[in-house]
């Protein structure tokens, strides 16, 4: 039986590498595929959301799995890739729950990670030839 275009059997090493690159740095997967306009928009927007989240005293959640909400918050945060790990290992993202902007900042950090997950799905589709 022939493989349909975009089937799982056709996932190449290049597809995996662009997805990993995109997961680590927002937009890098698109840049590798030559989609520079998308790459710059994704990097700029996600970096802006993440940086503002930290500036406004948001909290980065550690990989602790005591409760389901803590796990989901960690997954949303970690979606930002290297931004998350560099900030966490640098001691940033302690968060100040008494800060006026704490809730806003956390939403910025969650959404930065979740948008990067969508960006990785987009780069996967492009690498598989399902999308231009």
């Amino acid at each position, binding site marked *: 039986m022939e493989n349909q275009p975009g089937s799982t059997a056709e996932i190449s090493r290049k597809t995996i590498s662009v997805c990993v690159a995109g997961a680590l740095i927002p937009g890098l997967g698109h840049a590798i595929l030559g989609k520079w306009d998308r790459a710059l928009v994704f990097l700029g927007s996600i970096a802006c959301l993440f940086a503002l989240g930290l500036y*406004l005293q948001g909290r980065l959640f550690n990989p602790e799995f005591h409760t389901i909400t803590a796990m989901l918050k960690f997954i949303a945060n970690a979606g930002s890739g290297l931004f998350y790990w560099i900030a966490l290992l640098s001691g940033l993202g302690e968060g100040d729950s008494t800060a006026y902007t704490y809730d806003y900042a956390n939403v910025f950090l969650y959404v930065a990670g979740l948008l990067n997950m969508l*960006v990785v799905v987009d780069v996967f589709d492009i690498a598989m030839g399902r999308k231009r």
Partner: protein
Amino acid sequence: MKNHFVLMLIFSICTSLVLSFIAKKSGRERTKYFLSLLCAFIVISILASWLMFPFPF
């Protein structure tokens, strides 16, 4: 920078930009989608905050 409306505006612009580049192909389509998403974010946020105004918490 602690103005909630400005923060909501920045959030809306960044999110709408990413979603419009993911969802649409041509520049014209992206611009149209971006503006409609941005308007939806702003209008719904203001409407929701206005509806929540009477609540004491």
